[in-house]
């Protein structure tokens, strides 16, 4: 325990002495934890509002629905049989409340200049044991006709009590607007829904609406028994030749299905967070390795004095885990702050989104990622520093060089100019760093490819004429895709920023490491430009790997995302070639900045032995 306290004290002192590096690590970690924090707070943020409406409306625990295609009357006998069975179900043990069965009529409603599928649920005015819709404006069904709109539909139509809606071509007055949990909100949940009295239903049937099924809703003594109940009384359509569909659903299932846009958004954010976390590992590893290199002498001294390697690793871990703890706290805080704003753009939420309470599971998930980043980034450099013999650490200096590789010899044979060959040699000497930098870059490149493909695909999507009856919901889906695209583009942007930070850090450390050798090169007659070129070339290896692996990776990721409603698109070869050419150029430009700055330093002090 005492060594832990000592470790903590040493760690705090180290942090205070080098605040810049600690701050940089904190920043990169916080980007990852922030995105993940938003993701955890967005995911499930629609649950609390849903629960509120569920309780207020005496929402169902188990729902039974039967649907048959509108134009096949031959199923009527079968449907009647199902109706009898469902009424029998209402008397099953455990059932304390019944709603319905309510008939559903199928037709169309005019929305935004186009027509949308419509379901009219036929109810007498009530009250109901189960599913008493929550009237948000106007009145519920009663004397005087008119329809009650589902709140999502009303929002899309921007219609309220006193307005008219056009159903089956006929304008009908709106009586009121109500919320329910028995259906998802229009327009992401289709078809649109209105409630009507039996009289109005007769009118609608005359106008051409046909019967398409019915729904029965049950409340149980214990809501948690819903799944058991469904398992015990499953009522599947037993005749496979018929087109009649019957299914039972629990309230938990419905809740889970009601917020597809939130789910997609959260999912995208999680994926983005994971990618960013991977890149942050690379950045953290580079920062920590660079830091270890400068601290190597300290490690050697400590070892010579008798501090055990385990204690050294402990100090390092404490330091970096402390930073990780800070990043976790800030990330979760950002998440809770930003999530309601982001989730509020959702069209499915029944009210204001609320970040779900911070369960240990959610905190642990973000914490696990941050700690994994720190551990992966710390362990390897730390172990390497410790395994080095004490003497070598004391003598200080970078890792010993390896035998020159075949690539360098090949380059020399091909007549690549000397600075280029020296650069390749340098790169070969530190394969770990090369790979780390490449990993950082290639994620950025892959995301650019995905972003390009997504942009083309979504562009095609907006051009696609909407299917008849789906105009409004297609528009809403379009908005959702826009959000997702925004998230993806933002992620690509973040990854690029991180990759740039990564490149600059790596280049700076590489320049510092090479400073000694470059001073010697200058003393024997290499010009400053030649040494800068050598440095840039040494970093280009990472760039080459990033392009060669990143572009196929991006194409692969895209092919995973394709399908569903996203039109197939192949990224144009010309764009890919441009990308493959642009990345090294931009990268070389970025890397040459620290290279040139460090080349300006005077050479003599590096060569003097004082």
């Amino acid at each position: 325990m005492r060594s832990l306290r000592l470790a903590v004290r040493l760690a705090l002192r180290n942090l205070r002495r080098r605040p810049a590096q600690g701050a940089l690590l904190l920043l990169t970690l916080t980007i990852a934890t922030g995105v993940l924090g938003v993701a955890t707070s967005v995911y499930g943020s629609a649950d609390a509002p849903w629960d509120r409406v569920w309780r207020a409306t005496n929402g169902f625990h188990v729902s039974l629905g039967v649907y048959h295609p509108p134009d096949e009357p031959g199923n009527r006998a079968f449907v009647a049989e199902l109706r009898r069975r469902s009424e029998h179900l209402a008397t099953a043990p455990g059932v304390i409340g019944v709603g319905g069965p309510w008939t559903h009529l199928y037709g169309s409603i005019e929305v935004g200049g186009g027509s949308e599928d419509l379901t009219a649920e036929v109810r007498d005015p009530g009250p109901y044991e189960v599913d008493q819709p929550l009237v948000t404006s106007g009145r519920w069904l009663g004397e005087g006709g008119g329809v009650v709109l589902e709140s999502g539909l009303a929002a899309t139509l921007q219609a309220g009590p006193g307005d008219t809606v056009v159903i089956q071509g006929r304008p009908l007055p709106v009586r009121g607007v109500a919320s329910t949990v028995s259906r998802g909100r229009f327009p992401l949940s289709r078809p649109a829904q209105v409630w009507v009295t039996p009289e109005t239903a007769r009118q609608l049937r005359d106008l051409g609406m046909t019967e398409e099924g019915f729904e029965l809703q049950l409340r149980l003594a214990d809501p948690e028994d819903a799944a058991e109940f469904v398992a015990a009384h499953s009522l599947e359509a037993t005749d496979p030749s018929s087109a009649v569909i019957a299914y039972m659903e629990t309230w938990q299932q419905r809740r889970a299905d009601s917020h597809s846009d939130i789910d997609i958004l959260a999912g995208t954010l999680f994926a983005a967070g994971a990618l960013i976390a991977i890149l942050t590992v690379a950045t953290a590893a580079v920062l920590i390795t660079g830091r270890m290199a400068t601290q190597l002498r300290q490690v050697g001294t400590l070892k010579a004095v008798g501090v055990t390697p385990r204690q050294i690793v402990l100090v390092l871990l404490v330091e970096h885990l402390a930073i990780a703890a800070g990043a976790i706290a800030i990330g979760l805080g950002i998440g809770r702050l930003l999530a309601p704003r982001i989730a509020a753009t959702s069209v499915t939420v029944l009210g204001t989104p609320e970040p779900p309470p911070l369960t240990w599971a959610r905190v642990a998930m973000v914490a696990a990622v941050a700690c994994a980043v720190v551990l992966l980034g710390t362990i390897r450099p730390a172990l390497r520093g410790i395994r080095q013999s004490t003497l070598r650490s004391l003598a200080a200096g970078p890792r010993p060089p390896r035998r020159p590789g075949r690539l360098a010899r090949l380059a020399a044979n091909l007549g690549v100019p000397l600075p280029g060959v020296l650069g390749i040699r340098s790169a070969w000497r530190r394969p770990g760093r090369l790979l780390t930098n490449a990993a950082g870059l290639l994620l950025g490149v892959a995301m650019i490819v995905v972003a390009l493909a997504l942009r083309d695909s979504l562009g095609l999507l907006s051009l696609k004429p909407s299917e008849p009856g789906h105009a409004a919901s297609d528009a809403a889906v379009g908005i959702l895709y826009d959000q997702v695209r925004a998230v993806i583009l933002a992620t690509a942007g973040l990854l690029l920023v991180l990759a740039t930070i990564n490149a600059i850090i790596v280049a700076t450390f590489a320049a510092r490491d090479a400073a000694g050798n470059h001073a010697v090169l200058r003393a024997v007659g290499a010009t400053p430009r030649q040494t800068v070129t050598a440095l840039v070339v040494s970093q280009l290896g990472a760039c080459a790997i990033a392009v060669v692996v990143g572009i196929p990776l991006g194409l692969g990721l895209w092919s995973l995302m394709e399908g569903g409603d996203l039109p197939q698109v192949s990224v144009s070869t010309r764009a890919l070639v441009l990308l493959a050419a642009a990345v090294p150029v931009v990268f070389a430009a970025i890397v040459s900045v620290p290279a040139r700055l460090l080349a300006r330093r005077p050479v003599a002090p590096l060569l003097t032995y004082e």
Partner: protein
Amino acid sequence: MSEVIDARGLVRRYPADGPPVRAVDGVDLVVEAGETVSVMGPSGCGKSTLLHLLGGLERPDAGELRLGGRRVDGLSETQWAIFRRRSVGFVFQAFHLVDELTAVENVELPALLLGVSRRDARRRAMGLLERLAVAERAGHLPDRLSGGEQQRVAVARALINEPLVVLADEPTGNLDSRATGDILKLFAELRQARQTLLIVTHDARVASTADRLLTMRDGTIVAQTRLGSGASVAGILASLADLGGDG
């Protein structure tokens, strides 16, 4: 004009608390072709700084410097680098071999920079390494070489382009006595081959190999001594050997 180095009034200042320190404070120096000159002085006297100025590793704040007749004190970094390839060879106390190149690659580096073909550069480098009796270590990286071997490789590197002058900064500072002896012999050979050599050192044995000795103190040269003439050796030895005494 056979003056390899012609320095007049060289001054180099460093900022410090208070007035700037004059590391080199008005040095005039002439070195003829084929001469070996050594510079001795207490530490901090500016002899290393003087060497850096002569080789272009530092810029003088005042004064003129000509190497091989060419005015060099105003050259840019790039121009100095190109000039150094052909004209100046450095030997450092800490050897300063590029640690990721093998011995022979280190030696041929200045030649490659000069534009010599790879084959010729390699040939020249191996020739020098053989002359310096370190050829069988040609393919090793510096961290596998002893101090004496590394310094010999460094000397080979300094010589490969047949420079106007070799500038050596405490060349035996990191060597044991055996390796020091090897370097002494090497410098004596260079002297016989009429290679112009300027050595900064505080080792009397190294300094005394020169034709001329300069003593520096506080940034200026306070004494110049020709070492070539003097008492007969046998006499010296006799007085040292104390042969006349009773047993």
